[in-house]
């Protein structure tokens, strides 16, 4: 597979990111980042809210993300710029919000990439144990290799890296389907003892409705990262077609995957175990007693983790690059590679950052640091979602329907925007219940970063070049 790179650009030409992506790549980017959440992480909803609490969280948070994807599709199909939500905020609200959103995106994806690399090295360590190794395999070299090798792929071209993501993501999704087929999920009485689903009321909602609300925070694992499809808009052959089509197909895939995952796990594992398992789907395969399923699910987990890390490198670098291009950060980061047409400096710069966050929990022998890294990622994403609500209202006010060409029009406006605001507030509350101190620390971090931006950086921002999309003058200006 080869990128459609036209070779080195001449100095008299203007550089741009290469426009080679199709809806398939957008699907691979969105689903690829998220699907690892089906293989691990989602099951903490069970610990918080029980089996039914977990299912409610999957669907309620699914509604949050469906609203988000629809809103995202309308704005991104109209403003197809790298940086996604950052570029949206730049056009609709202003530099301070754009800076914050850009920073949320970079931190969310870099932290998630670090967590993925950490998990990958854990899986390899487990695999070496299964293959009979008596000595403990070090996590450092494999976490580092995963990040560096995927960054290399991203450096060399977006087409190859997202084509690879398509194959490994599709494979990982098919392993979930294979698990459902393998245990004959359509006939629950045959192979599933349903210990988590029936028998006792305590299995369903052991902590009542407050448990369901607490589960919402971890319900984000089912979908966190699907909004990253917007980051690739500038590299699509036709963003107005690819972004809505790829993103919608992505959220449909994820809702199906989330429901299937919950169903097979709930049917075969007791909820008390499931709530704390590290690799729940792999455990389901082991309980099912099929060697083929065990191998498939192990490979599926590895592929999902790699796809997520790969997508995160793509998205974090685009957000960082677009802030550099507009001088929100030093212009050095806003460079495009003349041959590969990728944001190469941003890709390289974020490698040591991701490696540091990946190996710090191991280096300091502090596993809770990993959950803090993951919580930082989730909360950064959530802050970005909350900001999308005012962004979208202002977008519709500045460019009402009929004033600009849209690749997709959000139906039932303003209901999805209200749903996004309400559900984001609920998840914030749930996070506060479980991680109040971390939440406040993260808010303090972004507040300090905002002060730095206003005092030290704003003077360098290209204020006259904020409106880069080919849009008419906004209404009222």
């Amino acid at each position, binding site marked *: 597979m080869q990128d459609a790179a036209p070779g080195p650009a001449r*100095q008299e030409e*203007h*550089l*741009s*990111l290469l426009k080679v992506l199709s809806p398939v790549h957008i699907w691979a980017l969105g689903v690829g980042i998220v699907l690892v959440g089906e293989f691990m992480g989602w099951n903490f909803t069970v610990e918080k809210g029980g089996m039914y609490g977990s299912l409610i969280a999957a669907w309620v948070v699914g509604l949050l993300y469906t609203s988000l994807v629809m809103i995202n599709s309308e704005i991104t199909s109209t*403003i*197809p*710029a*790298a940086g996604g939500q950052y*570029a949206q905020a730049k056009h609709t609200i202003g530099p301070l919000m754009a800076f914050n959103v850009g920073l949320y995106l970079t931190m969310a994806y870099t932290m998630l990439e670090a967590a993925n690399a950490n998990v990958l090295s854990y899986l390899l360590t487990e695999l*070496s144990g299964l293959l009979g*190794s008596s*000595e403990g*395999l*070090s996590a450092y*070299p*494999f976490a*580092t*290799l995963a990040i*560096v*090798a995927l*960054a*290399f792929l991203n*450096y060399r071209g977006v087409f190859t890296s997202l084509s690879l993501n398509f194959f490994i993501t599709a494979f990982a999704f098919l392993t979930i389907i294979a698990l459902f087929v393998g245990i004959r999920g359509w006939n629950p009485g045959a192979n599933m003892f349903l210990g988590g689903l029936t028998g006792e009321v305590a299995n369903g909602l052991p902590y009542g409705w407050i448990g369901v609300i607490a589960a919402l925070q971890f319900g984000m694992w089912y979908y966190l990262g699907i909004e990253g499809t917007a980051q690739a808009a*500038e590299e*699509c*052959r*036709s*963003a*107005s*077609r690819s972004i809505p089509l790829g993103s919608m197909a992505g959220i449909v895939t994820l809702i199906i995957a989330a429901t299937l995952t919950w169903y097979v796990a709930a049917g075969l594992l007791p909820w008390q175990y499931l709530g704390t398992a590290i690799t729940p789907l792999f455990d389901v395969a082991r309980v099912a007693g099929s060697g083929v399923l065990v191998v498939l699910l192990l490979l599926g987990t590895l592929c999902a983790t790699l796809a997520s890390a790969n997508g995160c490198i793509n998205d974090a670098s685009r957000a960082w690059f*677009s802030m*550099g*291009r507009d001088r929100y950060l030093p*212009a*050095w980061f*806003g*460079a*495009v*590679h*003349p041959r590969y047409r990728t944001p*190469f*400096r941003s890709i*390289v710069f974020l*490698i040591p950052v991701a490696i540091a966050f990946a190996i710090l929990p191991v280096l300091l022998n502090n596993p809770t640091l990993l959950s803090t890294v993951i919580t930082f990622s989730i909360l950064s994403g959530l802050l970005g979602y909350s900001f999308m609500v005012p962004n979208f209202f202002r977008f519709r006010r500045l460019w009402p*329907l*009929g*004033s*600009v*060409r*849209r*690749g997709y*029009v959000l139906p039932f406006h303003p209901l999805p925007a209200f749903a996004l605001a309400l559900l984001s507030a609920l998840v914030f509350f749930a996070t506060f219940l479980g991680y109040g101190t971390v939440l406040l620390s993260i808010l303090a971090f972004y507040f300090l970063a905002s002060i730095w931006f206003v005092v030290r950086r704003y003077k360098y921002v290209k204020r006259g070049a904020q409106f*880069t*999309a*080919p849009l008419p003058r906004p209404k009222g200006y």
Partner: protein
Amino acid sequence: MSVWGALEIAAWVLSAGIALWMVADLVRVGREYDEDFLTTAVEIDHVPADDEEGRVR
């Protein structure tokens, strides 16, 4: 040395090799091309073809 120990060393060597290649290429591009040329990428340089035929909605 066990197989796993050798794999760990191979992972380190491979990581270092890839990282060095990227840094060397990054430095080479910075030397060969004008900085203004590299950092003035066009954000949205054209309206996609289907938009040109599309409806105003």
